[in-house]
């Protein structure tokens, strides 16, 4: 196990102090696990992606044209 030190806002600390029955380090540990697992899952999926920079530009242009046409409708 390694130790971590967290900085929290004063107003959060006031709330936390009202519930001393809660093991807040466990809450933090679970939150860290959840977020880390999610990042790992998304990285694993993205590893399979064959999307290229050129593809991104092409899709971007197409989406922007479509979005732009919505806005133009509101002007005209």
């Amino acid at each position: 196990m390694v130790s971590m030190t967290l900085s929290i806002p004063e107003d959060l600390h006031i709330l936390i102090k009202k519930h001393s029955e809660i093991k807040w380090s466990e809450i933090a540990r679970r939150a860290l696990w959840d977020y880390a697992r999610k990042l790992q899952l998304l990285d694993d999926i993205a590893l399979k992606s064959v999307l290229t920079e050129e593809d991104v530009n092409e899709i971007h242009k197409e989406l922007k044209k479509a979005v732009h046409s919505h806005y133009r409708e509101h002007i005209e």
Partner: protein
Amino acid sequence: MRLVVDTSIIISSLMKDSESRRLMLLPDLDLFTPEYVHVEIERHAGKIMGYTGLSDNEYNLLMGNLLSHVNVIHFDHVEILPGSGFLEYLHVWDQSWSIPNFRELSYRPICYIQGLSLYLVVGPDPIFSMRFILISSSTIRITVPLDIPILLDISEEELSP
């Protein structure tokens, strides 16, 4: 920090090695994008998925998670301005911000947020030049095509007029 993300940022987050994805998943950023961006990403889902080579489930999981980090700015909060009005705002911004190459943005479609509203200045070019817009709750902050590392290196305090 609150940012408006462009479609290119969202789409490039689907790439294998993506700095955009790292940025989009930073929990201390509040990201925003106009409603129509979400609508069009949904409408083009099949095509985007085809480019990525991901399965239905993989694409939905990845895109769904990414978009869950982006707040939708509903159209009720968007005010559309014609591109011709952009110079008026450029004048104000130019005095407030010493941004290199700012004038290159003239007549390009660009959007910014003031208070709770998103303003879109729509010009003849459908490809928006900006990538991110840094916003605050009460004042226009900045609207330039900044690269991600530069933007992350600048604090809101440093950008204040």
